[in-house]
């Protein structure tokens, strides 16, 4: 991805030498650059083959600075992963909050998620598929990331007529269905076409709360 390498030069960096910037500002910008670089490099190379040297080179920081910020590659990757998930959740949240009715909120949130993932296919695959290859801690972070969708889904219980009587793990499972369907597309190499998956993931989100007929009606209405 040559374009990524070029873009790097445009990113803001504190001027070299004596610039009088407070050290914590310099550190924060170094950390942000490193986290961004980590998601890029690991998405390109895979977690296993990525070295700390790859990360410092892409981020334009020294090895010493790296080890001031993180203990090792894994700690850095986990922080980068959490940061990427935070960004996705913020995008989902602001789209979701802009709507009123729960099914509309769900549709808006899912559309935002699909668009964000389609815009960065390699990082999407890392976030939802290849992350599991980065070891047990990363696997737990991935599951925790899926769990961050459940508060949006729990509102379905209030919206659905019989919402209170649904099984305990309904929101956890609905989130898993969305992520599973998206992961299938990513594995098949269809990241760019993810926005076209909206009807499928919306149905998977609504069906445990509303039942198949009402969920299908909501999906049909959205498509009109």
């Amino acid at each position, binding site marked *: 991805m040559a374009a990524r390498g070029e873009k790097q030069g445009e990113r803001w960096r504190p001027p070299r030498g004596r610039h009088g910037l407070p050290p914590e500002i310099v550190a924060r910008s170094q950390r942000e650059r490193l986290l961004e670089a980590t998601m890029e490099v690991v998405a390109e190379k895979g977690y*296993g083959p990525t070295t700390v040297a790859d990360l410092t080179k892409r981020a334009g920081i020294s090895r010493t600075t790296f080890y001031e910020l993180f203990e090792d590659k894994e700690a850095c990757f986990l922080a980068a992963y959490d940061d990427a998930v935070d960004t996705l959740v913020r995008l989902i949240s602001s789209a979701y909050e802009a709507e009123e009715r729960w099914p509309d909120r769900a549709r808006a949130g899912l559309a935002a998620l699909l668009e964000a993932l389609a815009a960065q296919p390699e990082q999407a695959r890392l976030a939802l598929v290849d992350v599991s*290859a980065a070891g047990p801690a990363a696997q737990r972070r991935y*599951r925790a990331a899926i769990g961050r969708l459940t508060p949006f889904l729990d509102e379905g219980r209030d919206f659905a007529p019989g919402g209170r009587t649904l099984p305990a793990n309904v929101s956890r499972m609905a989130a898993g*269905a969305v*992520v599973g369907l998206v992961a299938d597309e990513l594995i098949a190499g269809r990241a760019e076409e993810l926005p076209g998956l909206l009807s499928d993931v919306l*149905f*998977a989100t609504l069906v445990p709360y509303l*039942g198949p007929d009402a969920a299908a009606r909501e999906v049909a209405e959205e498509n009109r």
Partner: protein
Amino acid sequence: MFPLPPTASHNGAKSKAQQDDLGGLIEREHLPSGRADLPEPLIAHSQRERILNAMAATCAAKGYGATTIADVCEPAGVSRATFYELFKDKEDCLQASMELSLADAMGRIVEVYSPDKPWATMVRDAAATFLDLLASRPDFARMALVEAPAAGGRSLEMYASGKRVLQALLDRGRGDPIEEQGIPSSAGRGALAAAESLIVSQILAGNTERLPELLPDIVYIITIPYLGQDEALRQSREAEKTLRSGAG
């Protein structure tokens, strides 16, 4: 079937006794110490199984990526040379372990599957069988549902093909194609992904032994696209009853 009895081993470091327990039926003790009169293939067979068990246990404890051949040989009580006689490399060993687990799980599910049973009963029985199997073999559960798909390559392919078989079993005998009711054709796949996600998160949280308790949730999510909400809730309550009568 796994050639091994259920083990009570948990994730994490294994004591010597637990390691031996993993070997189950094919523990070292079960082979006479003078092996000269045992036919070659029999020894190799039990060595192979000890290695597969050790592979599952080590993956469960530290993840497939961090697992080394030495980690596997030590608890299996085999030499490096023996390992390489039986397996090409670490990945080959993982695939063999995955193959065994998959064949076992599918065999058990097909056993409870019958076209004569009502579809919902078949789903419930198959799900209960699967959850019980995972709970009785926490190391293999983790290897098959977490490490093998994460390793990519042929292990991931085997995992994906296992899911397709389950999907085909679900699709069979459910009546009219759901697409005709305006329901997306991905609904069944989504339901299975929902169940899978819940199961995997419980495994990663160290709750593998308690997986059977998820039966009512899993019956609900798998049946709802096909049967509607009222019937799915009824089936879920049935599953809860089965669970309570089974436990008590």
